[in-house]
């Protein structure tokens, strides 16, 4: 019997372990493909096993032992989706058992659990394990061995197609019996689906076996005919060369599929059943050289946290390097300065690789929309065909995460309000299936994502009414407004209200929020709609952010930065080039007239040490062909690679700020979102022109 102190120690240790167990189970529930919690759980149960045995809870110890060995198995094998919930439930239940015992112990009751209960647990684990973790009964051969076999006298090669009866329940045993019968009479070289999948017996009812034997077709047929539950057998003799090539091909695809699913794992593991077939085919010829059984591992799985850390450390390095080069410039040490300059190249290279590491295919998230669309379509009684285009476009993982909810919003809206019910569509002469297209493509530094439906389109007449009702404009003038003008109103927060459900097909507040979100990301959002033809929303988001090349400028006494990618040209500011049109300032550049923005005014800066206006600089920033503006700052400083940190501010309109960064000298500096300012300026103008 243990002493009181021992018991106390036991309680505190067990409590810790139980807490840990609970945390790990929750982690596992959130991300069932993460093997780390299973490993951790294995260790906690192992410790619990020892602990409970020491205090004399033999049954409880056995109970923990069963969990331990089960988890040990689970570490080595993947728990299938169907079993996963069950598995997690069992873990939670086990936790409750442990908690109960512990609570009793606290009250001084040292009662062990019932032995029968332990037996039950053991049995339920057995049913689990034997179904999920078992055997390899196909000894897949590599190509060399296959060649050897084919060269042997009298050996013939066959492709055998087998279809099991639909009523076949114990597929695994059925497969075992089939393979055993064949292997007793020859050699199975490969299967389609791959052996790994076949053995998991998660296949449909039919499969192909690549088989070498001395027997003839009739013999093979006889062997298989003795076996029950086979519905159909097709045996095709294949020439040796073709046999080898087919297997090599199948193996190559399989390896690719495996490596593809590994890299996908970095974010979302849930959708491992689908693999972009085109992609595989496209790449498969590249890897043909590797299909001789010594397949190279082309990718590794990395915890995303490590990547984030790596990015952060690199960010800090960039800042330090900038600081050093700044100091060296002041000291005028040329040799060292040159050396530091030489570091630019490797820094850029690392930066580029880091970017790539952060990239994931949009597919990883977009695949989930299939389900979403299906569910929403069912919910609304509509018939929808979702088309995903460009799912192999890569984008920064962070940005992909952030555009997820705007996209979900757009897709839902398109189904709810865009696409008409089947009957209405038929009346309009459309196919009863509405087409919803999600198209992704890359252009310059941006990713474009289009959500397009072939539904009713936006009712612009109603928007005109609303423009008039809200007093932006009178009826006659509203008639003159183009769709583009009206689109700006749609995106004004609060322009339409929830009660205007059918206005713009119910696309009220939501769209303003979507547009807002996209702008926060440094992106752009636009709408094109035709009555009864459909609506297209286009999101234009940067494909990565984090490290930017920026032009440092001084406004009043403060430092700011502008991303160099937005800058078209920098001039000395010449007041003579300023023109006033309808009270607005414009700057004349060659033959062009460009809106002028004084940054100190725009950002409400108080200029204490009044700078001479002729020393000022004019920075011409361009958003696209039509939209640009000239920004006036007080002083041009150096250009730097800056690490963008998110910027949130309560005291100013943070929409004009892209983020913040720290300069080489350690000064915090805000990065001005010139594109956003240009956009809001043009919007303002349209609205002010109207009113």
């Amino acid at each position: 019997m243990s002493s009181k102190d021992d018991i106390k120690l036991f309680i505190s240790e067990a409590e810790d372990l139980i807490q840990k167990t609970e945390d790990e189970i929750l982690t596992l529930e959130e991300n069932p493909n993460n093997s780390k919690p299973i490993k951790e759980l294995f260790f906690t149960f192992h410790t619990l096993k020892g602990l409970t045995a020491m205090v004399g809870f033999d049954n409880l110890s056995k109970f923990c032992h069963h969990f331990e060995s089960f988890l040990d198995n689970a570490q080595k094998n993947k728990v299938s989706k169907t079993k996963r919930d069950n598995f997690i439930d069992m873990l939670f239940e086990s936790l409750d058992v442990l908690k109960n015992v512990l609570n009793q112990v606290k009250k001084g009751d040292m009662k062990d659990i019932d032995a029968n209960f332990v037996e039950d647990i053991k049995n339920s684990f057995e049913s689990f394990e034997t179904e999920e973790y078992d055997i390899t009964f196909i000894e897949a051969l590599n190509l060399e061995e296959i060649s050897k076999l084919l060269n042997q006298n009298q050996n013939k090669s066959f492709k055998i197609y087998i279809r099991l009866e639909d009523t076949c329940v114990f597929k695994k045993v059925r497969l075992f019996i089939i393979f055993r019968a064949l292997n007793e009479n020859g050699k199975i070289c490969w299967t389609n689906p791959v052996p790994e999948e076949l053995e998991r017996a998660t296949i449909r009812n039919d499969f192909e076996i690549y088989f070498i034997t001395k027997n003839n077709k009739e013999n093979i047929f006889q062997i298989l005919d003795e076996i029950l539950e086979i519905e159909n057998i097709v045996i095709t003799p294949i020439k040796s060369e073709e046999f080898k090539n087919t297997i090599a091909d199948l193996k190559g695809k399989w390896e690719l599929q495996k490596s593809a699913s590994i890299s996908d794992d970095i974010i979302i593991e849930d959708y491992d059943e689908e693999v972009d077939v085109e992609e595989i085919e496209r790449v498969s010829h590249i890897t043909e050289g590797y299909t001789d059984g010594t397949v190279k591992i082309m990718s590794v799985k990395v915890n995303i946290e490590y990547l984030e850390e790596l990015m952060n450390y690199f960010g800090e390095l960039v800042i330090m390097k900038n600081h050093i080069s700044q100091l060296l410039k002041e000291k005028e040490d040329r040799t060292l300065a040159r050396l530091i300059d030489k570091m630019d190249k490797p820094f850029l290279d690392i930066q580029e690789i880091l970017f790539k590491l952060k990239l994931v295919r949009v597919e990883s998230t977009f695949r989930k929309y299939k389900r979403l669309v299906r569910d929403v379509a069912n919910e609304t009684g509509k018939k929808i065909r979702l088309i995903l285009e460009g799912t192999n476009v890569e984008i920064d993982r962070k940005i992909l995460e952030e555009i997820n909810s705007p996209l979900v919003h757009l897709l839902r809206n398109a189904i709810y309000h865009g696409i008409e019910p089947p009957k209405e569509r038929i009346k309009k002469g459309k196919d009863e299936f509405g087409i919803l297209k999600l198209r992704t493509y890359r252009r310059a530094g941006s990713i474009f994502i289009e959500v397009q439906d072939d539904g009713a389109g936006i009712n612009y007449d109603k928007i005109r009414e609303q423009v008039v009702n809200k007093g932006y404009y009178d009826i006659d003038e509203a008639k003159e407004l183009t769709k583009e003008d009206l689109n700006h109103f749609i995106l004004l927060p609060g322009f339409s209200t929830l009660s205007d459900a059918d206005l713009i097909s119910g696309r009220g507040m939501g769209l303003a929020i979507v547009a807002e979100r996209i702008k926060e990301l440094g992106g752009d959002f636009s709408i094109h709609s035709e009555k009864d033809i459909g609506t297209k929303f286009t999101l234009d988001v940067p494909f990565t952010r984090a490290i930017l090349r920026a032009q440092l400028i001084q406004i009043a006494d403060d430092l700011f930065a502008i991303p160099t990618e937005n800058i078209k040209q920098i001039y000395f500011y010449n007041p003579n080039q300023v023109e006033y049109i309808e009270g607005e300032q414009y700057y004349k550049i060659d033959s062009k007239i460009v809106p002028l923005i004084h940054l100190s005014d725009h950002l409400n800066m108080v200029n204490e040490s009044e700078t001479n206006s002729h020393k000022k600089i004019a920075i011409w920033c361009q958003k696209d062909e039509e939209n640009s503006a000239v920004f006036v700052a007080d002083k041009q400083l150096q250009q730097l690679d800056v690490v963008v940190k998110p910027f949130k501010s309560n005291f100013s309109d943070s929409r004009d700020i892209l983020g913040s960064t720290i300069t080489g000298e350690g000064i915090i500096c805000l990065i001005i979102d010139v594109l956003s300012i240009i956009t809001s300026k043009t919007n303002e103008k349209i609205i002010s022109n109207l009113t």
Partner: protein
Amino acid sequence: MVKNEKKKVLIVDDAQFTRNMLKNIINKIEQIEVVGEASNGVEAISLYKKLNPDLVTMDLVMPEKGGIEATEEILKINPKAIIIVVSALGQEALVLEAAKKGAKDFIQKPFKNEQILEVMNRILKSGE
């Protein structure tokens, strides 16, 4: 094999009901005769030795000695023994185990008459 001699079947199952059902079905086939019934593994082995049947239907979960052990031991006596597992649903693991030990094929309970007939016909045909 001597002509006109019927093929012999041994039924192993702990439930009288199942044994009767199997017997009724199998005895409908002219060339086959049920020569013995065993209600556990121990009986099965001793009857096998005594009767030397052409085919054994084997239940898996039985008192005293289970079907898997019985299968294993019968195959030790005669490596060519034909043993067909007749098992309840949900016992896939056990069935696989029996198959690995050498059982020739399996049928799930509840079985249909045709299934039993098919097995008998197929397997006994192959022995000719």
